[in-house]
């Protein structure tokens, strides 16, 4: 590749200096400079939360969080990948829970240590009001916690930064599950569709798809109607 020096920037990956094209994401810049991802890369589209990274830019004390697949590099950026935040995977039976504050305290009692410092919110690459949903959980406001944490992709940066050692994304997930199970209740259109599937309404269509060759299937997929 022919390099155009005017469009190159200097970045520091885990302390090592590299020259990389200015329009690359952190992830692509790291690959450009020779790193190979075995962990810490997933969908590459900003949805899966696997590629959390932290960085500082030249001249600023601010420690910032980002998804490596989304954030474009800046000149003088110091980058460290944080592909995983150590957190216990707690299991519970959703059907046995109650949507109240003590459910949160039972599984994540450390939320009681929240100092409202808001560091989690500042670290969140999704611009979620993390501290507010932790606080909503603490006072048993399941609906608010679920609503505020809705865009969470569990990248883990909040958990890495929390001085009270809380794992906020797990708390938000519990809130959303409690909200869906107990407060919103089953989604009617999903139930209707499941009934239709079980009644065999789509069997013929599925059979037809199964018989298609790869090329036709691909054409169908690309030409499908997407309602946003």
């Amino acid at each position: 590749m022919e390099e155009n020096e005017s469009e190159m920037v200097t970045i520091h990956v885990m302390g090592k200096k590299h020259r990389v094209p200015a329009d690359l994401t952190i992830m692509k810049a790291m690959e450009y400079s020779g790193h190979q991802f075995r962990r810490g890369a997933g969908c590459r589209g900003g949805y899966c939360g696997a590629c959390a990274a932290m960085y500082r830019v030249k001249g600023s004390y601010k420690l910032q969080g980002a998804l490596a697949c989304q954030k474009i590099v800046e000149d003088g950026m110091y980058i460290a990948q944080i592909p995983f935040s150590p957190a216990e995977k707690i299991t519970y039976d959703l059907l046995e829970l109650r949507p109240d504050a003590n459910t949160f305290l039972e599984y994540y009692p450390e939320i009681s240590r929240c100092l409202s410092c808001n560091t989690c919110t500042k670290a969140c690459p999704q611009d979620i009001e993390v501290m507010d949903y932790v606080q909503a959980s603490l006072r048993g406001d399941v609906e608010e916690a679920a609503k505020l944490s809705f865009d969470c992709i569990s990248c883990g940066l909040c958990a890495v930064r929390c001085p009270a050692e809380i794992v906020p994304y797990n708390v938000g997930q519990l809130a959303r599950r409690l909200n869906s199970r107990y407060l919103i209740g089953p989604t009617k259109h999903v139930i209707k569709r499941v009934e239709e599937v079980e009644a065999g309404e789509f069997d013929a269509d599925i059979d037809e798809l199964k018989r298609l060759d790869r090329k036709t299937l691909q054409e169908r997929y690309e030409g499908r109607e997407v309602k946003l």
Partner: protein
Amino acid sequence: MSTGTSGLYFTFKPENAAFKAKVEELSGENIDLCFQCGACSSGCPLTGEMDLLPSTVIRYAQLGMAEVLESKTPWICITCFNCEIRCPRGIDIANVMEAIREMMLRTKYDKFTLDELTPEELRELPQIAIISNQRKLTA
């Protein structure tokens, strides 16, 4: 616990001065004002659980004796401020207790962690109990 004294006299060493200064800095209290009247101890509802009386803790601090960090008393103190309204010398003894707790907590020491509670206990307790407990007893 050991008293740190040897024989009949006590030598106030630089390390004692440093410890005393740290307690005063963290608590914001002038502990030399204490003349050991014991009013704080007589009003304290928790002396039955303590190994040192509150007034004795102040005496240890006056003498800069770091052994007081090993005492149960600052952890039994629940900052009810009964001593504060009784002290004729205007010392807020609860602040001194907090200073001693803080000196321990700042060495990565947790007096009590929530891991020790059962799910049933966590379900029963109101947030206010858990929050205040953690604020006082964990680093």
